[in-house]
């Protein structure tokens, strides 16, 4: 017995342990998740700058890869008016381009005062124009061949660099092969701080002609046109886009050497250099710690909620398991009590029989009176045992639906009077009265109905004080039901027990049921009523008495 009790206590401990463990897990998971989120956000702060860079230099790359090589498509046929159109389209699409200088170059084998000459090959600017937002029409032309030697050194600088590179290339070029990408970049692009110079790429045939011009003595040649253009750009006019506003508070373009002198420890920053012509500058990205913390919290929130949800589900499952265990434990206790009571119930008559037996054996001879007395005792106790056993048996039968209803027409008045008479003999002080209203005949199994009456009358007797042993039975028809009311003046049932009294093996702990009770009576009644497709209910006031109300289905009997 002790072990059983311990078993249930152990279960409770398990539940507690479980709860504690999952709570610890929750805390650990929360901490881990928060730390990981923080690390992740901090990593992103460093790594996502590449994406920002891409966004920012996208137009620059587009200019470099697509718009500038477009110059080649014109095959040197650009002049001041077509360049103007080209330049305007550049200024609209690429606002970071400030100024474009266009060198309308000519290649021939004729000597010239301006430009470059190697062997017989000369390249010179025929005209130089500049375009830009702040360039007026008058200041557009920087140089024209009709005014030789007027080209300023500064203006000629980019042209000369390009011309030198190109001339060197012509001298060593392999004209039997197509240009490769390396040559295209190295020869025809010149990328310097804040400016790109580009020269239109000649066709293969042109390269061959140029090479011949340089290395062979030939009659005066035609003029071959090449276009050279310099794009002056302002990095600060690059449009700074922030594809990650959640990470970066401020993004600015700064010179490469810039370092923040701010002493604000709250501010964290990272930087990345710009490519190509802007390589003297970098993107400087910064955020305050609290700004990042916000982002971390924002990202941590759904994780935390998820964890809490899992935790909640686990706790719920634990509760449900615990509840099941609890019910089982109560059931176990009831069964245990029942066995206890039953043993007790059986013990009393058995010991009385044993004493009577002993007395009969030990006495030399029995008087008639004694013989009657012992006979009566043995008879009574045997009846008690029999009754107890019958009850147990029939309850089990009822519960298992093992008996069959044998319905017959019952004359209620006769039926009640018989029972009352029987009780009057048994308990002469028990005042039972019966009122039958409006019905006489009722079709039911008389054995079952009798058991029902017996149980309820027994209960009424048992739970009434000795001076108030009264029971009033009312039978009446209400619509399609026959209602039986058993009203006593007994001790009553506490309100909180009302739900339990119909449960198997349940007994109210009280001084009145110390003996002769197994806690089956009302449960048996309920089973019986259910079996007869009826219902049972109870009303009670503590100290004043109880009223059991049974409703059974009633069929109007035909007169035959």
């Amino acid at each position, binding site marked *: 017995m002790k072990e059983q009790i311990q078993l249930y206590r152990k279960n409770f401990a398990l539940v507690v342990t479980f709860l504690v463990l999952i709570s610890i897990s929750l805390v650990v998971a929360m901490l881990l998740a928060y730390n990981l989120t923080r690390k992740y956000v901090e990593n992103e702060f460093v790594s996502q700058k590449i994406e920002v860079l891409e966004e920012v230099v996208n137009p620059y790359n587009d200019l470099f890869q697509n718009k500038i090589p*477009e110059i080649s*498509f014109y*095959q040197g*046929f650009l*002049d001041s008016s077509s360049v103007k159109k080209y330049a305007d389209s550049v200024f609209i699409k690429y606002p970071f381009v400030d100024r474009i200088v266009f060198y309308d170059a000519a290649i021939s084998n004729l000597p010239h005062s301006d430009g470059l000459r190697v062997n017989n090959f000369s390249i010179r600017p025929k005209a130089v124009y500049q375009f830009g937002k702040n360039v007026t029409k008058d200041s557009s032309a920087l140089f024209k061949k009709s005014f030789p030697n007027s080209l300023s050194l500064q203006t000629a600088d980019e042209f000369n660099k390009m011309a030198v590179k190109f001339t060197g290339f012509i001298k060593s070029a392999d004209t039997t092969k197509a240009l490769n990408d390396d040559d295209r970049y190295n020869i025809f692009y010149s990328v310097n701080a804040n400016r790109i110079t580009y020269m239109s790429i000649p*066709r293969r045939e042109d390269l061959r002609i140029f090479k011949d011009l340089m290395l062979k003595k030939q009659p005066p040649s035609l003029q071959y046109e090449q276009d050279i253009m310099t794009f002056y750009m302002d990095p600060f006019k690059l449009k700074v886009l922030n594809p990650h506003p959640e990470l970066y508070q401020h993004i600015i373009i700064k010179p490469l050497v810039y370092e923040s002198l701010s002493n604000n420890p709250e501010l964290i920053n990272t930087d990345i250099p710009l490519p190509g012509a802007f390589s003297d500058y970098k993107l400087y990205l910064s955020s305050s710690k609290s700004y990042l913390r916000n982002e971390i919290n924002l990202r941590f929130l759904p994780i935390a909620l998820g964890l809490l949800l899992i935790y909640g589900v686990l706790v719920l499952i634990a509760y449900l398991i615990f509840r099941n265990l609890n019910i089982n434990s109560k059931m176990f206790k009831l069964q245990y009590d029942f066995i206890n009571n039953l043993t007790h119930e059986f013990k009393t008559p058995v010991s009385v029989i044993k004493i009577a037996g002993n007395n009969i054996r030990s006495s030399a001879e029995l008087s008639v009176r004694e013989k009657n007395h012992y006979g009566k005792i043995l008879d009574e106790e045997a009846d008690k045992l029999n009754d107890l056993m019958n009850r147990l048996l029939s309850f089990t039968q009822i519960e298992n639906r093992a008996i069959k209803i044998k319905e017959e027409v019952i004359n209620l008045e006769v039926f009640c009077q018989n029972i009352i008479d029987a009780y009057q003999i048994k308990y002469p002080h028990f005042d039972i009265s019966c009122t039958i209203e409006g019905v006489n005949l009722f079709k039911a199994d008389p054995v079952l109905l009798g058991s029902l009456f017996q149980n309820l009358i027994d209960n009424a007797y048992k739970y009434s004080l000795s001076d108030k042993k009264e029971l009033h039975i009312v039978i009446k028809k209400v619509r399609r039901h026959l209602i039986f009311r058993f009203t006593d003046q007994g001790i009553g049932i506490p309100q909180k027990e009302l739900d339990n009294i119909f449960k198997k093996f349940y007994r109210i702990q009280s001084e009145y049921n110390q003996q002769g009770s197994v806690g089956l009576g009302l449960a048996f009644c309920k089973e019986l009523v259910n079996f007869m497709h009826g219902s049972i209910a109870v009303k009670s006031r503590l100290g004043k008495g109880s009223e059991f109300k049974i409703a059974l289905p009633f069929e109007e009997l035909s007169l035959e």
Partner: protein
Amino acid sequence: MKYFDLLMRLFFEKNLMYKISAAILFSCILLFSLCSKEKKNEQISLETFFKNPEKSNFAISPDGKYISYLKPFHNRLNIFVQSVDGKEVTQLTQDTLRNISYYFWGNNNEILFIKNYESDENPILQAVQRDGKNTRTLISYKNTRINLITTDAAKNGEILVALNARDSTVFDAYRMSIKDGKLKQLVKNPGNITNWFADPSGKLRMAISSDGVYETLLYRNTEEEDFRPIVKNNFKTTIVPVGFSKNQGIYALSNRHRDKMALVELNSRNGKEIRVIYSNPEVDVTEAELSSIDNKLEYAVYETSKKQRFYLDAGVKEMYQQIEKQLPNTELTITGQDAAEEKFIVRTFTDRNPGTYYLYFKKKNKLQKLSDVNSSIQKNSLSEMKPITFKTRDSVIINGYMTLPSGKQINNLPFVVIPHGGPSARNSWGYNAEVQFLASRGYGVLQLNYRGSTGYGKEFWIAGFKEWGGIIQNDITDGTKWLIRTKIADPQRIAIYGGGFGGFSALSGLCFNSDLYACGASYSGFINLFTYVKAIPPYYKPYQQMYFEMVGNPETDGDYFRNVSPVFHTDKIKVPVLIAQGSKDPRVNVTETNQFAKELKKRQIPVTYLVKENEGHLFKNQENKIEFYKELEAFLKNNLDKNK
């Protein structure tokens, strides 16, 4: 049986997995071989369509005793000679690198020939004896092109050639001995002469000079006289001398003072037209044939939907009718004859038959078959080419040809629109390997002679000037829309494809009529007019001004060039593109094409890009040609079939 053995052997393997996989493999192989067999039955292979002709370019020796032809030897065309009866075949050349591009009989005993050459190679004129001996180089100068002035047999052992040896931009006329290649300069080109003409006796008597816009016909009665100009006209007017008439007149095809070219006789003194010999109200007269014996006009050729002959000589008419009687239901042309005009090379062809070469004996009125052009092509499996006409948006009637895949319902067909190159050219009726190849793959083909095409008169031709991507493109678009309107084509499955100018039109269509085509292919297509105009070679310099007028001047028409050149409009292309390009193509800068393809790729447009390092404009190498058509086949299949 082999498969069966394999299967049996594998069945004895213990491992069940082996058995299963072997069974699967076996059934796959079986299925595959069945499929491929089935396909072979219905589809002529790509290689068959585009293989070199077995024998081609037949010619008869002047004495009529030998027949020469070109035949592939190690996949390159070489010269062979056989006797008229087909015996005694001799191979004269053994070049495995280059094709023979041109040859002719210098005399009864010798053949002169020129080989194909690339722009950075030097052309070479060689001679060889009929028996294959004594192969010798007659002319080979660095950076010098060889233009033949006479292509008949040599007169007094001499022929006339034009060379630009002195100055790469001008061709001087020389008389060359075919024995040793010795040159004698006849006339020094003052710089503006673009064409030389010799009379039947091999005397240099006519020339055309050009200042780029104006052309002048020059004439002299004897070689001792100086050339004198007799008629001058804008290049839009054409006078093509075809021969010398009696009374010192000139036979010429001319559209001076008229729209359509006519066969006329000119007065050689003042250039005035003496008479119109033949003209056609609908189309130009494109050819006129003179007998080399008596210098009499035989017939004039004009081309409506098919080429037609207008006979000017009863004897010739009689002969043609005799041949036609023996070769019914086919077109025929005479491609060669002997000096006595007794034996002729006749070539037949139809739209569904690449044709056959015959030898015709005039006296015996007998035909002797020489060779099929492509004997592996079965005539009945090919598709009919139908002449069509439609009206453009401005109510101009455009002629064209439609080839529908045989055995298919004429409804909702996938189509390939092929604008021809040029644009100063035209599509003609006849066998076209490319068209038949596409039709055999289930595509309808539309070819159209848009404005700017030649053959339909001066006005029609000039209407295409500076209208690249303009009226020309509209005509192509209208043709496509006509296909859709008549429900012949499935509007979801139309491709546009072309070579050279056709490639330009294809890309232009993709750029500016992007919703009309499901995909487009450009074969050596011009993608940039600036580059195209810049590529006029130095020896074409006199024509530059003419080009400027026809195509546009890059300096003054820069905006127009920019607006129509596909290279500036990659952003407008939305459908898959195939580009095939030779690295040495002078009219297209391969760097630009690279850039073009790169930009398309960047914009996630599917691009099939085929670049051949050693090819120029349109691929010459057979392997490259086959590769291109394979790509084209797959490209059309992928992009047209998916829209089904």
